[in-house]
């Protein structure tokens, strides 16, 4: 046996060390964008799942809902930031939701101007963004506990995390389900219409969540940091 040939164990150790090094080197940056990537709003935290599963079946719907979610959540959390923390959580929940419902009116008008007929195609899932878990849960338990600028950065990441996922899922489901992209049919493209149904939405989002979890394990180095917590799905209120 050649002395220059490394044993498989030494190769694995070197790869593991490099993986850990990447995560450790970029940990601060990865933590700043965790809402977009490693702690993605939909794929890791499990928030606002209904909209992605039911209405994330076309790119147009996805872009419209992503835009509405971004505007509504961003402005609601920013406006309710001024609500004093001395008010009990029970009443803060009411205030957050009422502010969100009030802001929904201009947001729906703006979204309809940009994406025509989104209120028809999205149906009740557009107004259902009012009670999304980001506003009802995370705003009091996470965002409002931070200073304003870090809060905005964190909020933008969470909002983008949802938008990216719903757009990707919508694009994929429309392509495979209808053989079209934004309504433009691709000739002779094989389709599986079942992909447009809710059960496919659950399975597709579940598969993407598994992919993200695998990426997290790889970046952390398996066994190094332990995302192997059964409570890995973050508390919507954290």
């Amino acid at each position, binding site marked *: 046996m050649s002395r220059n040939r490394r044993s498989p164990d030494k190769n694995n150790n070197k790869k593991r060390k490099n993986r850990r090094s990447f995560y450790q080197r970029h940990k601060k940056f990865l933590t700043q964008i965790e809402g977009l990537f490693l702690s993605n709003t939909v794929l890791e935290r499990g928030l606002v799942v209904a909209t992605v599963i039911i209405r994330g079946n076309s790119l147009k719907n996805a872009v419209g809902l992503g835009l509405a979610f971004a505007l509504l959540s961003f402005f609601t959390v920013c406006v309710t930031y001024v609500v004093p923390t001395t008010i009990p959580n029970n009443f803060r929940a009411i205030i957050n939701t009422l502010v969100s419902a009030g802001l929904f009116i201009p947001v729906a008008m703006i979204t309809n101007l940009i994406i025509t007929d989104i209120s028809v195609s999205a149906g*009740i899932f557009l107004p259902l963004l009012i009670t999304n878990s980001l506003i009802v849960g995370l705003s009091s338990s996470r965002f409002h506990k931070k200073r304003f600028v870090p809060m905005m950065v964190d909020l933008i990441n969470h909002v983008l995390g949802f938008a990216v996922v719903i757009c990707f899922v919508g694009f994929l489901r429309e392509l495979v389900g209808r053989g079209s992209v934004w309504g433009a049919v691709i000739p002779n493209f094989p389709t599986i219409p079942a992909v447009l149904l809710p059960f496919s939405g659950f399975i597709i989002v579940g598969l993407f969540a598994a992919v993200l979890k695998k990426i997290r394990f790889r970046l952390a180095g398996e066994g190094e940091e332990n995302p192997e917590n059964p409570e890995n799905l973050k508390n919507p209120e954290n």
Partner: protein
Amino acid sequence: MADFMDFLTKYIFLVAAVALHVIIIENTIFTCALGTSTALFIIRKKRGVLVFGAILTFMTLFSSFIVIIINALFPYLSDYNIYSPFIFVFIISVAYLLVLLGLRFVPQKIKSRIIPMVHMSAFNCAVLGALLIGATRDMNPVEFIGLGLGMGIGFTLATFLISVSHDYLYSENIPKAFRGYPVTLVYIGILSLAFYGFIASELQF
């Protein structure tokens, strides 16, 4: 008296029929995915699924009753428009406050168990979704009550079915990348496919 009993029987059957349709054919979680995040949170926190379901059913029913009363006083509210969600959220907030007030008369032991769940049971997609669906379909008061009842019971049934397999889905039998949330979504998808069979429609491949 006989006429009254006929009247009551007819409307009780109508409520039951609408509720059964919503529980099986248009299940809150398996068909509409409403309240999925809430259900997953309740299951992970191992809070009483049935107690939470009962509170949520009460919130949807109570909110439906308030909507029916307001529609009787202000008929234009029955039209679904861009302002309806704000009105419905206001109604849910009133129902939430009334429930909190009502809890004052409940023994402390039960109150301490229920209070953490009331907030989540009020402000979630299932309750608001029930009101929005009723408004978009222009339902009459009896159908509205059946819808509210069916949405609540459907949510409870779906959450219970998911919670039954919780321990297995988080066990070491499941590959690491799928363990927990990812495989739970796949599991809900398979249950959703089973419920789709009740619609008696053929899947197109």
